[in-house]
């Protein structure tokens, strides 16, 4: 499982999702959707056969996470981390499901061997991303 977590995975999946979720939580659904779409499109050009797919999925993720901001108790770090994990998982689920032509076996394999670990890895970094700015702002105030 660990060997699937290479720098490509970190650069193309983990980091973008982390940024999208962070920005969506911070700014709301509009900005989340815009940022998700932009990042998705920039990453899609490395796989032009599915140009627009990553943009669409990440746009939805940004939008829904932005909506959570006002409906969930997102002051809790735990809920933010859970949302981050779900975002990574959802992104992988839809991208692989659609790009593999709804190959459920392949999707399951990728989710089980790759996304689970990358989700946890993202949560680990997300935890620091959510905790530290908050602590800094508290200190400043």
């Amino acid at each position, binding site marked *: 499982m660990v060997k699937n977590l290479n720098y490509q995975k970190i650069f193309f999946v983990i980091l973008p999702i982390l940024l999208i979720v962070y920005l969506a939580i911070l700014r709301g*659904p*509009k900005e989340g*959707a*815009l940022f998700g*779409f932009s990042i998705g*499109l*920039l990453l*899609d*050009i*490395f796989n*032009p*056969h*599915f*140009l*627009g*797919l990553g*943009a*669409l999925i990440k*746009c*939805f993720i940004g*939008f*829904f996470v932005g*909506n*959570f901001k*006002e*409906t969930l108790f997102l002051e809790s770090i735990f809920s933010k981390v859970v949302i981050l994990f779900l975002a990574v998982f959802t992104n992988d689920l839809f991208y692989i499901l659609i790009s593999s032509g709804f190959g459920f076996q392949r999707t399951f394999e990728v989710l089980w061997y790759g996304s689970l670990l990358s989700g946890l890895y993202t949560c680990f970094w997300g935890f620091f991303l959510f905790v530290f700015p908050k602590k800094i702002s508290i200190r400043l105030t």
Partner: protein
Amino acid sequence: MGWLRSSILKENRIQVIFPYLIASLILLALPNSYQRQLSHLIFAFAYSPFYQLNSKLKELYQVSQKNKSLNEELIRLKIEILSSKEESLENLRLRELLGFKSKTEYEVIPAEVVALEPNRKSYMVMLDIGENDGVERNLPVINMKGLVGRVTDVEEGSCWIELLLHPNCRVAVLDQRSRVHGIIRGAQGNLLKLDNVPTDGDIQVGDKVISSGLGGIFPAGLEIGEVKKVGGVEGWRLFKSILVKSGVDFNQLEELFVIRFKKTD
């Protein structure tokens, strides 16, 4: 999920996502060739500056690394020069103490090969310098790899060089490691033969052979070559049969240097 749906629908937030949805679907529906072209376009617009920056940074890093290694080399060479100077001065002092004659100094005259002897077996080449440049008979000729030969005929603007491979050419040499003396002469091809080395002379394959300075034509210390083969130690022979490979490629002689003697005292 009702709360989410009501939240989205209540404030008409769903409208936000429509343009992106449509744009994404259009992009997905595009033919492959268009998708590729569009990808290239986005790549050129969004990533190229970063790639250029990256390559420039890499270049800069490489230059800095090279600069660092060159600086180290420079310092090492400076130290070597200083130590050589020290040794040279010490040598001079010791020679003075012992009452030795001061060593002859040399100057080098650069020259280019302009002609080869038509009969290649005579191993002669012509240089573009002559009497006018201070060239005299019997002056040694070298290149970066070692001794090449000696001047045999001098004209006003040119001179003929007899190469080491020439059957008449003889050079007094010694083994740099064991200091065993001998005489070098042309053998077969580009190989040289080291004569007059007694069978008990300590010569090994790989030893450097340099001119000994005996005979007065060639100064001491000029590199001749490397011992390639040692034979003739069996039986009742008087001398060893030794082959030396010269560092000079006699088939590709271009720039040479004539060494001119300059007495200092």
